C-alpha cells in the first residue's frame, strides 16, 4: 500500500475520532530525538495542553481532550493507529 493512501486513511480516522469523542485536536507525530514532527490528524482546536501517549517507539499520539475515551477504547484506538503506521 502506498504511503499517501495510508496517511490519508489515518487522517480520516483521526477526524472521525475527533467528532465521535469530541476530543478537539487529535494528531500523530513522529519522534526525532526531542523533536516531534506532525504527520497527520486534526490540529489543535480547544487550545488546551494536549495529552500525549506513545503509539510505538517512533510515534506519539496527542489528544487535546480525552475525557470521553475510556481505557478500553483508548487501547483499541492505539492499536488501530499502530496498524495504520505499520503500512505507511
Amino acid at each position, binding site marked *: 500500500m502506498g504511503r499517501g493512501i495510508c496517511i490519508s486513511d489515518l487522517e480520516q480516522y483521526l477526524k472521525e475520532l475527533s467528532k465521535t469523542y469530541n476530543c478537539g485536536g487529535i494528531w*500523530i507525530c513522529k519522534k526525532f530525538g526531542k523533536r516531534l514532527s506532525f504527520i497527520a490528524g486534526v490540529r489543535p482546536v480547544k487550545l488546551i495542553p494536549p495529552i500525549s501517549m506513545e503509539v510505538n517507539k517512533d510515534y506519539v499520539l496527542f489528544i487535546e481532550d480525552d475525557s470521553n475515551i475510556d481505557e478500553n477504547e483508548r487501547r483499541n484506538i492505539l492499536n488501530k493507529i499502530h496498524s495504520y503506521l505499520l503500512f505507511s
Partner: protein
Amino acid sequence: MINVVEWVKNRIIDDEIERYTDNGRDFINDDYIESLINNANNKKPDPKKIRDILNKSLAIQTLSLEDVAELIKVSDPDLIEEMKEVAHKIKLKVYDNRIVTFAPLYMGNLCVNNCLYCGFRDDNSIIKRRVLNIKEIEDEVKVLAGEIGHKRLIVVYGEHPSTDVNYIAKSLETIYNVKVKVRNGWGQIRRVNVNAAPMQIKELEVLRDIGIGTFQVFQETYHKKTYSYVHPSNTIKGNYLWRLYSMHRALEAGIDDVGIGALFGLYDWRFEVISLVAHAIELEKKFGIGPHTVSFPRLEPAANTPFIQETRYRVSDDDFKKIILILRLAIPYTGMILTAREPKELRNELVDYGITQMDASTKIGIGAYSDRLTYQELEKQQFEIGDTRTLDELIRDLAKKGYITSFCTAGYRCGRTGSSIMDLLRSGKEGVFCKLNAVITFREWLLDFASKETEEIGLEIINKELREIEKRMPDIYPKVIEYYKRIENGERDLYF
C-alpha cells in the same frame, strides 16, 4: 587524518541541485527583480494600492514580488506610519506580544571557504583557529543554561571537515544532555537551532534524527554576479545553486523548520528583500511550508577584512528599518530574528516592527562564554557585536516596553511544526499558545534567574497577561493558573 582537499571535492551532489530546478532554471530571476526595482525608482506609489496590499498582509497572506516592489516605493511618512501599525498588528495576531530569546554558540572557526566579507575566511591568517571539544561544549552550555538561563541556542559551524555532520550531531547530543541545578529548579537547553553550511540530504537526515530545531542557511546575497564576486569560484561556497537549494534538501530530509536570510550590505537591499520573498514563495509552492524564520544581518566590521569598509551597498539605519518593515508585511507568518549585531538603541526601536526573536548575553568568540570574557576579541570572532546587554537587562528593557519574554520551546515538541504550524500561524491559533506558554516559561525564568529589579517588572507584565487571558480565554484560564502554580511549586518545563 582527514584530507581537506578530498573532503571539499566530495561535498556537492549535482543531482541534489538539479532535481529542484524548473527546466534547469532556479527561482531567482535576476532580470525580473532588477526590472521591478527600476520600476520602483520611477513611479510614485498609489496609496490605495498600498492599503490593499496591507490588507493582504493583515489576512496573513504572503505578498507577491510585485506587491513587495510597491512597498519598496513608499517614502511618504504617513504611509510608512500605516505600514508600521499594520506590521505591529500582524505580529500581535500571529505571535502575540512575546519575544523569544536565544543565544548564539559558535562551535569553531575553521572554514574552507574564502568569503571576502568574513573574518573567518580561510586565508585570514590573523584569526586564532579553534574547534570546541565535547568538554568545552559542556562548559559553554553550563554557563548558558545554568547561569544565564537560556533555553534556546543557535549553534554556528564553519564549513570544515573538523565540524562536519558527525561533529554537529555529537555536539547537538552533548548540548541536549547538559542539565544544571539552578536557584529553584534546573536549567537545560530545550531547542537547538543550527546555522551551518549547506548539507547533503543524507546528512540532513542525521540531524533530523538527533532532534534539530530549525536548520538555517543564509544565501548571503541572492544577486548572482555579486555572489560570484564575494565567494571565490574555487570554493564550495562559490556554488550559488548548492546553497540556494539548501532548504529544499532540508525539507526533503524531513526537517520541517527552516530559516532563510541574507547578509545586507553585499548588494542592493531591495534586491535581497524581493529575493527573500521569492525564496519563501518557492518553499511554500514546492513543500507547502514557508520559512520558520527570516534573518537580515547587516555587514559588521571584522578583523583584517577591508571589503567591509569598501562595499558601496552598506545599509543605512533608515533603510534597515524599511527592510524589516517590508519583510514583516511580506511574509506575515514567519519568525523574524534581530540579532545583537545591531546596537541596543536600534534594537529597542525595531522590536516594535514585528520582531519575534532576539539574542542576549551574546558572545561570539569561540569558547567565550566559559572563558568569561568581558570584552570582544576580534581575532576570535566572525564580526563585532553591537548590543552587549545581558539577558536580564534585555528582558527588563522589553518589559518596560510591554513585551513579555518567552522561553517557549513547545511547538517542536508536540508537532506544531512544518505545514501544521503554518496553518496555526495563519489562523492566529499559534498566537494563543504563544501567550500561554510565554506566561508559564517567563515565570519559570524569573524564579530561577532574574535579578530583583527584573523580577518586579516581570511580575507586573505577567499579571497583566493573566488578566487578559482570564478575560479573553475564560475556558483555558483555570488550566493556566494550575500550571502557573505548579511552576511556582518547583515543577519545570510545562507547556501548552
